[in-house]
């Protein structure tokens, strides 16, 4: 059976970066393999989504999330995992 795949796109523009999107990258790179061992997650950076005031901005499987942090990113990813 092929693994379930989740695409995560993180804004790494000035504003989101200053508000902690770099910490989310570190967090995901460290925690991903531990917490979601049966899911394939692809992590990609992107530039400004024109929603700087609501950053950090993260897109998971084409759904845009605002004000993301290391505290809520895990539950956001969980929303996309079937079962």
């Amino acid at each position: 059976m092929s693994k379930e795949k989740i695409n995560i796109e993180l804004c790494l523009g000035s504003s989101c970066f200053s508000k902690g999107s770099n910490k989310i990258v570190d967090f995901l790179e460290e925690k991903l393999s531990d917490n979601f061992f049966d899911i394939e997650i692809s992590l990609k950076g992107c530039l400004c989504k024109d929603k700087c005031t609501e950053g950090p901005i993260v897109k998971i499987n084409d759904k845009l999330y605002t004000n993301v942090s290391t505290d809520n990113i895990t539950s956001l990813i969980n929303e996309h995992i079937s079962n």
Partner: protein
Amino acid sequence: MNNTIEVAHYNLHKYKEKVAGDCFLMNKAPDERIVATLADGMGSGVKANILSELTASMLQRFMLANVNTVRAANSIMETLPICSVRKVSYSTFTSLNISPDGVTKTLEYDNPELLWFRNNEFLQITKKTSSIETNTTRNTTLYAEIKLEFGDRLIMFSDGVTQAGMGFSATPLGWRINNVKKYIKDIISNETTISAKDLSFNIVEKAKEMDLNQPKDDITCAVVYYRKTRELMVITGPPGDRNKCPYMVEQFQQFSGKKIVSGGTTSKIIADGIGADLEVDMTDMHSDIPPRSIMKGAALVTEGLLTINKVINILDNENITQIKDIDAAHRMVELFIDTDSIYFLVGTAINEAHQNQNMPVEMGLRRISINKLANILREKYLKKVTIEYV
């Protein structure tokens, strides 16, 4: 004019000395002449430092004012303080007064000979001599006027280079000028466009190696590289009026030199305009500034103000002689250093999200940051800088 006089130097102190006994100074005159002096004070440490600094500063003043070279040399010989140990007043020097058209006046006093390199050969400099009696001794200076062509280099160094390794069985008399020349020739034939910075660094490091990494004297080398101007464009910030986006794209496409795009929105404007892919390089993650992106046609694509403010910090404070490819800011610094003429195209749009007390204060002030950067590039690195706001 499309010619550039690239000058760089590298210096190491004598082992265990805290101050340099050699002094290298460089200035640009209002008429675009470059004036550079390498002085080597007798002995080492503080005394040598004072002698060489004094000599170099005086020579620079004379040269900047275009005072007759021989007169300048004589004035210095007469005024240098006298060493209490050796009873001679002594700082050797090599001084250059280079016009933008390549005409160069040289003045030498007791340093290893000034080298002139063209097309893989050293050229002979026809020198005249001038002697002067001081209270204690009779001194002879050598002076000449030469005409540099594109690709020519002038290389000068203190005797810390030619005497490196002295006393060791392999090099009882040191490295010696002919071997230094052979070494320089080998480096340039391997890398014909090697920068002044890299060549001077290379020579000094080799000399240090010959002294078994504990320099027996101050080691300094300065290189002048006369060549065609290298141009760089930096586009940063979206235009105040979004109707000006096509103008920015057009400027990007028409510019023939290297191009940097700095800013997330800005790079999207350019990428869309030229129909290029834009991808964040996730292998370039660092804690303090965002990663670079990759886009066809641009030498470098970075985030905007965090990166630019770090670039300002590096250019202002760090020793940039040997930059390793560390992050986007260091990459930008490297491009600045290797360039002569920098054209900033600065968008004046304001990002409301940056006008927030929780954001770093410099973030809201693109124009101030760019002005600061331009001033450092002009004053500390002698770059030609133009800024256009859109």
